[in-house]
């Protein structure tokens, strides 16, 4: 094993997908690290590149995607892996998808779905795999494990199926979990339960996790650090609780202002003005958020701001020191 300080390192990751003959950037230089056993929340609006980041880490992009920059897992370049290294990577990294029903073969039994990969990789014999699957079903609070293993996906509710997916992700004893909005497709009461199970098992197994969500508070609740993305770029990185309590980037501030609050009853939410910007519409020579930012000045349109250290944070904004923006924190 390499003596890497970080389990996952993304270095200036740029991803382009071919659309109508041309190529459109979906990630525009993402730098990110995930430590061993660390949970990192990836927060942003639709189209900000959250899912693309996870898919790039897991090599789940279309064949014709162009990837620049480096993804390293445990010190090794993920996109140049093959053979045994790739197979090891596949068992070290597990993914939990947003919509469990679409991501499980509908005509195979739950037990087959859970055990197929570990048996195929030769990690366990069938009997051992079955025993572990039942154990993990119990861990995700699904009772009557042996009977569930014989059921088909359509016989289980969405929340149960997502718990099956989480249990399956843990089968091969991975070191990194990529969770792409694992509770978005579930109803509210199930969401809380599934999230609690995911968090509990992650801590218990000492897994690193990249948790993708558009809910900054949820990210704060289950993650060590929060990364805010916008238009295919990282806008702010910081310790989870402090990002929520003391956001510095105008986008993070606006994002927090737009959430509904239980404490204060307001008639309208402060929606962020304008449309979310897609990565491929974003300018290369200006701040991507500038058109929707109430603190934008001419300099914001003059050059692309860099991600710079601001205390313990990294923030991509040239106005963080200015009194107006600082005042907005409160």
């Amino acid at each position: 094993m390499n003596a890497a300080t970080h389990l996952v390192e993304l270095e200036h990751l740029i991803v382009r997908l071919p659309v109508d003959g041309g190529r459109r950037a979906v990630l525009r230089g993402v730098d990110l690290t995930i430590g061993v056993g660390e949970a990192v929340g990836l927060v942003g609006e639709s189209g900000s590149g959250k899912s693309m980041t996870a898919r790039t880490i897991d090599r789940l992009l279309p064949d014709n995607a162009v990837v620049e920059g480096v993804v390293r897992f445990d010190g090794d370049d993920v996109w140049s892996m093959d053979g045994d290294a790739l197979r090891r990577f596949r068992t070290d990294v597990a993914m939990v998808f947003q919509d469990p029903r679409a991501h499980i073969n509908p005509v195979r039994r739950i037990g087959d779905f859970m055990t197929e990969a570990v048996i195929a990789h030769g990690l366990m014999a069938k009997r051992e795999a079955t025993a572990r699957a039942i154990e993990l079903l119990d861990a995700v609070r699904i009772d009557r494990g042996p009977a569930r293993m014989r059921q088909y996906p359509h016989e289980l509710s969405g929340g149960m199926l997502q718990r099956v997916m989480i249990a399956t992700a843990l089968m091969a004893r991975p070191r990194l979990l990529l969770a792409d909005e694992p509770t978005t497709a579930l109803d509210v009461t199930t969401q809380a339960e599934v999230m609690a199970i995911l968090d509990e098992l992650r801590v218990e197994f000492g897994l690193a996790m990249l948790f993708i969500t558009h809910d900054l508070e949820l990210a704060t609740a289950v993650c060590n650090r929060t990364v805010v993305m916008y238009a295919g770029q990282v806008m702010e990185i910081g310790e989870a609780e402090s990002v929520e309590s003391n956001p510095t980037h105008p986008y993070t501030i606006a994002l927090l202002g737009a959430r509904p609050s239980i404490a204060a009853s307001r008639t309208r939410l402060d929606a962020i003005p304008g449309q979310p910007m897609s990565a491929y519409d974003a300018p290369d020579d200006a701040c991507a958020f500038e058109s929707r930012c109430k603190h934008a000045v001419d300099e914001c349109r003059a050059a692309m701001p860099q991600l710079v250290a601001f205390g313990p944070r990294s923030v991509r904004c040239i106005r963080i020191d200015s009194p107006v923006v600082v005042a907005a924190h409160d």
Partner: protein
Amino acid sequence: MRARWRALGGLGRISALVAAMSAVIAVIGPLVAPHDPDSPDISKIWAGRESGHLLGYDANGRDLLSRLLDGARTAMVGPLLVVAISITFGVLIAIVAAWRGGRLDGLVGTGLDIAFAFPGILVAILVAAIFGAGITAAVLALSFAYTPYIARVVRGAAIQERSKPYISALEVQGLSSISICRRHLIPNIGGLIVAQATTLFGYAMVDLAAISFIGLGVQPPQADWGAMVNENLGGIVLGHPLPAASCGACLIVVVVAFNVLGERLMRVAESSR
């Protein structure tokens, strides 16, 4: 299983029974034939029914019922081989093209379009002209001609299936392409493949009968429904239509049954997607 049986509809269920029955006859027919289907009796040419000879005699004085039973196997083994070969190669080509996509898929598409230009019967006649008449040549020629049809339909379904999220979920678990295709993709489009195979069986049966009818397929004295229509053609003008007509009727009943069943299976496969 029961729900699928019901989904076939009345006509579909009747067709399935007819198809199953014809398959049984193909297996046991030659064994239960009451007389030797190949021994002629010159005194009985075109003779009508009599005790022990339920359908009478054919153009060479052979027992017609025995020849029909014996010919059932020949008439159905040929199409079965055509189906087996076309499905094997067609599905293989389709899955590889759909899985790899890109330039290979484009190349396969073009190749299929070119192969479409050759009608099955013409290829069979050409092959017979080169290698001599016979059932083997006819089967191979038809298999070659039908493979592109299977490949095209299966490729479309496979491309659609491959884009489904559960396939990517299997990929990130590190399962090999071959095992994903073998254990997930192909079984999940299995209904469509079975439906295509059933329809193809009907087409292949007509084509092989036609090839045998014009004398390039099954060779006399071997009993075969297509060849028997030709043998007994003279009876129609001589006032003995039964031998030729009974062979034709057998062909029609079986072919229609397979076609209807194939079409119903296709409908079931599509509705469950």
